[in-house]
């Protein structure tokens, strides 16, 4: 650590106006003088003055002076040793708190859609950015002592920090992410608290508000934490996975943080493979039913999980999983079908399938075969060929068997269809013939016959005598009975 020629210009100590003061040269070889340190504290206090950036024309000079001062502070801290004496800590944390802990403004756009709209950026960023920078340098300083800092960086501090993660400004969240990551790393006493608060934020997000801008950043931090879990995994962590991370998949805005979420899930499984079954069952339970974009994400996550899965775990979930995959390949949305079919391009997944081909092929076969004839998208049809061919080569006799039984089943269905058509045709004939019978009875003269062959009304219109009413009632009953019988048969056919 070389000492540079650092100057802190002493400034006028009035509250309102800033004027650059005299520059003081520092002797290169000497340690920081107490004068320097005092100046340091004074500058920190000066920076507690806040300016209104929504007013784009006011106080421009003062804003610039503060910005320069903040810059100086950052440089001073970064390049000197021995800055962090004990009494500097409260001044530093106070300056930081004053500047960044604020109520976030309500969004300009009440219907802000994070995926579509441009975010509202923080107006005071020119200052706030430097304050964040300063905080980061503070935490990463080689002289930093958590035992002193913890008096000031406490739960209240962390709580306020967490609230800021809801900022719409991605630059702010990026800083916060790194800062919280460092705090988690250095303050062991705060770890449980941080985890619990993140928990609360997520649960509130999932079940109450469905709004929070910082989910991705928090998940990224969690990823690095999960990566560092000791084995065996604590029950608390497993609960977090099942009760928070899995339900997090149901959020509408999943696309904003899915990559980070999937990373967390996979990290968990790499730590403890026995979690595979509950995880996959959880994902299957929450499988998207109407949102194709989400379905594609889920499929991507499943592939990531399969990439690291142990063969013994695979056996446990293969049946329910491939039942879902079979549905996906038949999905009329081409992106869903494509993504599912592309699994067969993954060597490791292929090896897992091959080992368990006798269970998997029957599940996949009929969907694939059916959709090869019916899907509208030509790319999909070509992919299905690849998949069928690959499966065929894994177990030829089984494939032959399934082909034969599929064809036999199709034959049976066709025959049933024909039988059903035949029945309806007979029914129609029956109605027509009975209708003409009634008309014959009631009029006696063929000339007066009303050649009304409509199914519904022909009986009602021509009635005149009560005996006819009786006859008709009987006939109607018979017809009704026939119809019910046929309906019952149809239903049982369908079953």
């Amino acid at each position: 650590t070389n000492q540079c020629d650092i100057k802190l210009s002493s400034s006028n100590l009035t509250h309102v106006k800033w004027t650059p003061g005299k520059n003081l040269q520092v002797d290169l070889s000497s340690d920081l003088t107490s004068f320097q340190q005092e100046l340091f504290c004074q500058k920190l206090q000066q920076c507690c003055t806040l300016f209104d950036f929504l007013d784009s024309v006011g106080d421009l000079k003062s804003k610039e002076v503060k910005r320069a001062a903040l810059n100086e502070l950052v440089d001073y801290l970064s390049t000197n040793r021995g800055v962090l004496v004990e009494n500097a800590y409260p001044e530093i944390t106070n300056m930081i708190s004053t500047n960044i802990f604020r109520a976030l403004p309500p969004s300009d756009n009440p219907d802000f859609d994070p995926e579509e709209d441009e975010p509202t950026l923080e107006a005071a960023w020119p200052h706030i950015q430097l304050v964040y920078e300063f905080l980061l340098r503070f935490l990463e300083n080689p002289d930093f002592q958590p035992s002193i800092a913890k008096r000031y960086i406490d739960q209240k501090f962390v709580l306020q920090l967490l609230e800021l993660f809801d900022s719409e400004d991605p630059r702010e969240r990026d800083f916060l992410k790194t800062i919280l990551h460092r705090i988690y790393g250095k303050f062991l006493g705060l770890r449980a608290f941080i985890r619990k608060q993140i928990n609360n934020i997520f649960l509130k997000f999932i079940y109450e508000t469905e709004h929070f801008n910082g989910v991705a950043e928090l998940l990224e931090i969690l990823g690095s934490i999960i990566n560092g879990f000791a084995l065996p995994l604590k029950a608390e962590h497993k609960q977090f996975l099942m009760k928070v991370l899995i339900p997090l998949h149901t959020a509408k805005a999943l696309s904003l943080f899915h990559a980070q979420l999937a990373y967390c899930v996979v990290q968990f499984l790499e730590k403890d493979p026995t979690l595979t079954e509950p995880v996959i069952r959880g994902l299957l339970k929450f499988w998207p039913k109407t949102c194709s974009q989400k379905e594609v994400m889920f499929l991507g996550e499943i592939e990531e999980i399969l990439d690291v899965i142990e063969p013994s775990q695979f056996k446990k979930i293969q049946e329910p999983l491939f039942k879902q995959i079979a549905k996906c390949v038949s999905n009329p949305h081409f992106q869903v079908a494509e993504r599912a079919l592309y699994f067969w391009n993954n060597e490791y997944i292929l090896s897992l399938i091959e080992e368990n081909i006798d269970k998997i092929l029957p599940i996949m076969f009929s969907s694939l075969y059916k959709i090869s004839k019916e899907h509208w998208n030509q790319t999909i049809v070509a992919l299905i060929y690849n998949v069928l061919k690959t499966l065929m080569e894994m177990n030829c006799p089984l494939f032959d068997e399934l082909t034969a039984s599929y064809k036999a089943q199709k034959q049976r269905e066709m025959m049933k269809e024909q039988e059903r058509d035949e029945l309806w045709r007979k029914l129609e004939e029956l109605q027509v013939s009975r209708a003409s019978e009634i008309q014959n009875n009631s009029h006696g003269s063929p000339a007066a016959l009303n050649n009304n062959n409509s199914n519904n009304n022909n009986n009602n219109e021509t009635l005149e005598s009560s005996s006819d009413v009786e006859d008709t009632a009987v006939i109607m009953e018979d017809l009704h009975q026939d119809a019910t019988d046929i309906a019952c048969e149809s239903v049982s056919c369908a079953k």
Partner: protein
Amino acid sequence: MDAVRLMKELRVNYEQEVDFLPREAGLDLIVSAHGGQITARSRDVTVEDLWSLTSFFGYSTQSFVQAVSLLDRFLAMMRVQPKHLSCVSLSCLHLAARVTEEECDLTPADELIRIGQCRFTASDLGRMEKIVTEKLRFKSKAVTALTFLQLYHQITLTHATYRKETLSLEKLEAQLKACLCRIAFSKAKPSVLALALLRQEMKSLQSEDMLEISFHIQRHLKIPDAELQLWSEWVARRLSDYASPKCSKPNHRKLQWIVSRRTAQNLHSHRSVPELPTIPEGCWDESESEDSGEDVMSSGDESLCSSLGSDAEGPFFPLHLRRQYLAA
């Protein structure tokens, strides 16, 4: 069809089958060939591809068998370069399908080429078809092992109708298909190959009375014992290989996986390298149970945060949310 007419038809086909045998010398050349020429392996792989296509497009086994017959005869007659093999085989399939399948079930040439992932055009295919037709003087369906198989099956059933359920023609067809995927069987006389398959199946069903019928057929056609025995052995071996879990993994050309642009983008973007370094969990650092308010003293600088507010204690999940997610 009554038994007598069937036997007569059998004879007729038996007499014609020699016309449809591929030249033995030509087959031998293929079997002994090395790289740079069409080898037995490449022929077998091509036939397997033909089967995949047949199955995929819902063509009948007949189309497949006819195609293989055309292919073998052509390859045994002409010296074909390996790069043209797929074109030849696809044109054989297209020709065979045209005389076998219904008009409405025919797959157009360019779809055939696209799915088969071939590099030539539909007009190339058309020209090759003409060449094949010309060289083989192709007019109508060949007499193949399938012809005999179907006849044998019918004959057997007329003599043993109660066996209708057990002797499955479909199964026999599948087994024939398995044999045709190996060039060794192209040398066999179709009548003999079919009979060997029939007997193999009857043996596995352990039906003495059906085997009796097969003897009857053999005597009727005067098929020598030695020939039948030879091919029965080959068939048995092939079928046991076919059914074994270790299916031969042909290292033929890899399949192309073409996806839409959007899916391709999706595939490449999702694996992101995390930027934040791992934070190892200490074994002693954090409180085990959130309910405990005890300070866990440690050897290092850090100890539990001194300002324990109400948030550090209490249940892990806040009560009002706990109810909600339990119900979810």
